[in-house]
């Protein structure tokens, strides 16, 4: 675990993505969820040698395709045309999710509605009356990788913490999240203990006051 650090201002989305990218181990196999996590790929360096997985059947996914590169047979899980890097491979859907479910990916980065102090994740369904549910690969991604990291805003529009004691939204996966990146703080979750690795634009004490879960400051 890293030493506790703090910055004066909240992290921008790009700063969050850059921090996630920097935390990905060299040579890791990684799945970046749709939305904010996709931005992490823009901050990975060639030196890191990270291999990206897309659950629709590919390892070695390259950047978004542009111009002549666009090929309707080569898309990512968000259905965006992408490119292929040297060393890529293709496989069918059952093999692709076997790869995920079997714990072969090192890191999966996801967005979230809520995360509990014990690492439960909610990110697939608001549960609102009349909402049409759709899950896609969210539940597979949540529980499949060796490490599941979340990127999210720490507070709702009405100021409530999205890091909660117990989920009020429907569960995506239980006890699966080990790290949360937010604009205000980065959290490490282990054995239901929430450690704050850093704060941004907020002090540890203020944070501890605003959040409904007990926090430990990193050494």
């Amino acid at each position, binding site marked *: 675990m890293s030493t506790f650090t703090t910055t004066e201002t909240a992290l921008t989305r790009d700063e969050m993505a850059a921090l996630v990218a920097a935390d990905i181990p060299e040579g890791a196999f990684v799945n970046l969820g749709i939305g904010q996590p996709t931005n992490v790929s823009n901050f990975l360096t060639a030196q890191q040698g990270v291999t990206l997985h*897309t*659950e*629709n*059947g*590919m390892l070695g996914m390259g950047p978004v395709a542009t111009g002549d590169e666009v*090929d*309707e*047979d*080569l*898309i990512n899980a968000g*259905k965006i045309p992408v490119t*292929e890097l040297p060393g890529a491979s*293709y*496989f*069918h*859907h*059952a093999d*692709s*999710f*076997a790869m*995920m*479910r079997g714990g072969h990916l090192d890191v999966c980065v996801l967005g979230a509605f809520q995360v509990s102090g014990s690492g439960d994740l909610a990110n697939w*369904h608001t549960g609102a009356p*009349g909402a*049409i*549910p*759709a*899950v*896609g*690969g*969210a*539940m*597979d991604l949540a*529980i*499949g990788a060796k490490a599941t990291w979340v990127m999210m805003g720490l507070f709702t529009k009405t100021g409530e913490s999205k890091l909660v004691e117990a989920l009020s939204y*429907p*569960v*995506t*996966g*239980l006890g699966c999240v080990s790290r949360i990146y937010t604009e205000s703080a980065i959290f490490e979750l282990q054995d239901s203990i929430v450690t704050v690795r850093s704060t941004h634009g907020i002090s540890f004490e203020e944070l501890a006051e605003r959040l409904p879960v007990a926090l430990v400051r990193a050494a």
Partner: protein
Amino acid sequence: MAPRIATTAAEAVANIHDSATILIGGFGNAGQPMELIDALMDCGATDLTVINNNAGQADAGLALLIKERRVKKIICSFPRQSDSWHFDEAYRAGEIELELVPQGNLAERIRAAGAGIGGFFTPTGYGTLLAEGKETRVIDGKGYVLESPISADFALIKALRADTHGNLVYRKTARNFGPIMAAAAKSAIVQIDEIVETGQLDPEVVVTPGIYVNTLVALGGKN
């Protein structure tokens, strides 16, 4: 049996009957057998159960089948999209049944059907709404849900190329559900860009062996 070679998409789907269960391949546009779906629309079969990753988009293909209320039930992982208005309307009107399945469980259930597996314990979905009413079990300290195979009367899939034995190769991420759906259906109907003579596909690179393929229709293609 060597596969039947149809000359048109209409001929390829002509045996599909009312109340059939149909696996439809594709993820986004990649691997989506659009011409076969259009032919299914034209052939008039109704009261269908469809298994697809999504529930149709915009005003084409599967979305039109749903608009015309030809699909009584859909099994999919992600029905709600910005342009899934026909599904949304049918669903809100209570005129289509939805079985929502996490994408990896959907793939594994289809694979199980083709592989003769009676059921399997998967960790995906454990502790969630989508496991409600299903048998669960804790194995070595980890929670699992028992899921059952999904087989079908027909599969409509798209591959790149076939030989006259029905061996298939695919192209990039258009492979997606094709190989497992071909194996899970009583009758797999496959649109490809071209059919080549037997012996023209390297046995090492065949992805779907011809044993799984019942009908081929070559429709040309951009590739």
